[in-house]
């Protein structure tokens, strides 16, 4: 890993200013960033820690408002989340491992834009929105609008500060993933389903970003490429199987 400067600002404005340097990267949990730096894929001269920005709170009042620096395990253990959005807790239990969940953050999990991650499709299906802050002000967009492609976001030198998830109510919801090597592998396929008047289905991992589909018929149109997890044909087949299973699980989900 190449040497870097570590800054730890205490305001969002300061953080955004520090990120103006060429190649500077924000640091949240660091679980993905550090691997990329160790592999030499990223060689940032400066890391800007978001630790002191006061973004670690989980607030509920109908909808769920999560600070971007909330760790995945804080989310997993929150009684409010367990009561109102149990599908999130079920998903987190099989997201990587407890060591990663203890440091990885919700904002980081969204901003990394690796299509193999579990939260982007799930939060997209839940209709969540992210609040973004940049030099020019702030805006709020749906989670799925964050993604432009593999490891590519639509962020414009902005930081994710919060995620807001509307109430799930009694709607059935499920997220299922299929790993084709070890159980803690990146998935070959992820499918998130939230049933209701406007049923929301998102496919991930097999696609280069979380992709909304209307139903099984739309799978044929998905752009899926083969990789180390499986061939394109196999992954397309897995999407079909897991979509049916996710819908079944969502129907039978107990609140």
């Amino acid at each position, binding site marked *: *890993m*190449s*040497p870097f400067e570590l800054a730890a600002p205490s305001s969002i404005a300061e953080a955004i200013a520090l990120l103006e340097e060429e190649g500077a990267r924000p640091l949240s949990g660091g679980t993905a960033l550090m*691997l990329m730096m*160790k*592999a*030499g894929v990223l060689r940032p001269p400066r890391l800007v820690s978001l630790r002191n920005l006061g973004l670690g709170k989980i607030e509920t009042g109908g909808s769920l408002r999560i600070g971007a620096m909330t760790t995945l395990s804080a989310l997993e253990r929150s009684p409010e989340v367990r009561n109102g959005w149990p599908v999130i807790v079920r998903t987190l239990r099989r997201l990587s*491992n407890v060591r990663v969940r203890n440091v990885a953050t919700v904002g980081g999990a969204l901003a990394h834009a690796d299509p193999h991650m579990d939260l982007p499709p799930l939060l997209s299906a839940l209709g969540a929105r992210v609040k973004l802050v940049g030099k020019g002000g702030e805006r709020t967009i749906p989670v799925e609008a964050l993604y432009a492609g593999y490891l590519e976001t639509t962020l414009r030198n902005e930081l994710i500060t919060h995620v807001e998830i509307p109430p799930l109510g009694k709607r059935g919801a499920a997220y299922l993933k*299929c790993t*084709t*090597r*070890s*159980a*803690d*592998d*990146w998935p070959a396929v992820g499918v998130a389903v939230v049933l209701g008047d406007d049923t929301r289905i998102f496919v991930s991992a097999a696609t280069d970003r979380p992709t909304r589909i209307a139903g099984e018929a739309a799978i044929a149109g998905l752009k899926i490429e083969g990789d*180390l997890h*499986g*061939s394109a044909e*196999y992954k397309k*087949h*897995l999407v079909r*199987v897991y979509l049916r299973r996710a819908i079944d699980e969502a129907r039978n989900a107990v609140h």
Partner: protein
Amino acid sequence: MKRATQSTETPQVGRSVPRLESWLKVSGRAEYVHNLRLPGMLYGKIFRSSVAHGRIKRLDVAAAQALAGVYRVVTSKEVREVIPDPYYGPAFHDQPILAIDKVRYVGEPVAVVLASDPHVAEEAVHLITAEYEELPAVYDEVEAVTSKAIVHEVLRPAGTFPDLKHLKDRKNTNVALEFRLRRGNPEKAFQDAHRVFEHRFSTQQVMHTPLEPLVSVAESTESSLTIHTASQSPSFVRIEIARLLGWPENKVRVRVPFLGGGFGAKLYIKLEALVSVLSLITKKPVKISLTMEEQFFTITKHASTFRIKSGVSKDGKITARECEVWWNGGAYADIGPRVTQKSGFTAPGPYDIEHVAVDSYALYTNLPPAGALRGFGIPQLVWAYEGHTDLMARELGIDPIEFRRRNLLREGRPQATGTVMKDAALEKVLERLETLMDWRTPLNRGTGTVKKGRGIAIGFKACVSPTTSLAAVNVNADGSCIVYCSTADMGQGSDTAMAQIAGEVLHMAAEAITVVHSDTDVTPYDMATLGSRSLFHMGNAVKLAAEDALNKLNVLRKELGLPADCPIPDIFKKKYGMQAGNVSGTGSYIPSYKSPDANGLTDNATPFWMVGASGVELEVDTETGKVGLTRLVNVADVGTPINPKIVETQISGAAIMQLGFTLHEKMVFDSQGQLRNASFAEYKIPGMLDLPASMVNEAVVAEQKSGPFGGKGVGESGTFGVSPAIANAIHDAVGVRLTSLPLNPESIWEKLK
């Protein structure tokens, strides 16, 4: 340190003594080379080849050398100023310390940057550039036999080990060794057979993944060298470094503290020659610690192809067997020729077959080198012959356990080499597996998209021979005891086992005995900690040394007119007038051995046999091909367990490791020989969630009469049966046969659809 002193009335052998080093490990005080820092030490980072086979046309290190903080950049040119002929290896002197003229695989070390800050060294590595004239490359072990791409133009045998003395000088071939065995008249037996079956199986290249990556430190004066290294073979390191430098052995000191796992990765020379020469060039201590990922480019397990053919009589007896095995050794032979030969002669499996032909080939290819990995090739062979056995039983309509029992080698019967089976509990292991699997009760077959199946497999291994172990036991004036041996404790619990053996002889609690770790200036010679040989060989040497010490104490008692039960401290007080002096016992052990003849036959191939069998119950998801193990039963013959708890964890650890090699792990190369998954995000070893819901690990009641207190090796036996048992169970569940590893869901789905 908290160390309970147990009653000496308790027998030491057969007691589950908690590991002696547990306190040191859990309190973070166990010594590892990884933590070693010496004053003025430089860190080395390696620049590696980006092509699979090529001539080095240009190597530009100027920018790296110019980077602030870089002490020096070293290439093979500087290496040769210290060591003119810098090629090493246990079988052939084929591996250069840094690439000379040619590179032979992607990832081969070409240059090293030295700096007092490892991050600076790493940064500078990125500034080195190289140009290669690419040469045709070969990756497949079967193609390597006839390929025009030649990895080594010339081969020079090392001549170090007695079992590899027959290796020849060779030119313009990728075949490092062919092992041939002929017994009876296979050709005629095939003609006479009622049925003939032939199958082809293959295995993939995988890695050891020890928790502690390879690491070595060297410090030097003009005429002496100390190497601190995570090595399984300190004595070999000393001899090989002394040979390279043309120095006497006593000028090279090799120290090995604890190892964080080895599994065969840390054998022979890995980083030791490189840090030695770097320390001699710079006159400073030099340390190289590989990253986890660099290990993919250092040492791996052989990929293999195995063609197996059997003739069977009307009554279900196997009468003839033909085995052809190709071992993908990668760019440097390492210990591949031993794998080829030692595994080669057990390729026909643990069956009583009159007519046998074996051809086993060690091949060079342009892939990272392959060596020993927990089984020395045996798991690759069992994978094939036990899949083959199951397929035949199925075709013949005979129960798989019954078919095996009908053909199993019995005690006193000659194995393929002609060596008679002795203390090999094959029947007992199979019988115990049958009971533990509740084999006679039909299995619930599952419903809907979940189909259930079960399968078993049994394998055996001959311990490598002939090899030597020496040990010393020192009894101090207060009656306390120290054992000196060069066996590396890499997590297998050898310190505890050796203390138990010495304690059993001397009537002392194992917990009160100190075991000194390998230091070639202090501890006597040992061939290496490999192939499950240490408990038997070093155990015998420690036992002899302890008996020697005990005998000397008894002689002293007699000389001094003391009663036979006189406590040890009183002997020394009487002899020296105070608490002074000590008694040293020594022991050396080498079993008898006879080299195979031109037909691969010998009546003394090995000092002992290891037996391992596994049974699996699993579920297959017929829509996705995903496999879930519900039960894994592993049974082994380990002789008399010296430490039952350690035996159990060794069996389970080996089986879980093999589970990864069976279901998930595979080094994936592209058409240019580039490794596509050189990270642990893409190379998946099993985690807790991959373990079977239920697991049984058992050693049968047995005795190795020539072993110390009836014991023998256990480190590898748990690996033997796992892969074929799983494939056999998948076949049982869904009627699909896979013949290459790993058994991934897509390959099952492909056959199901």
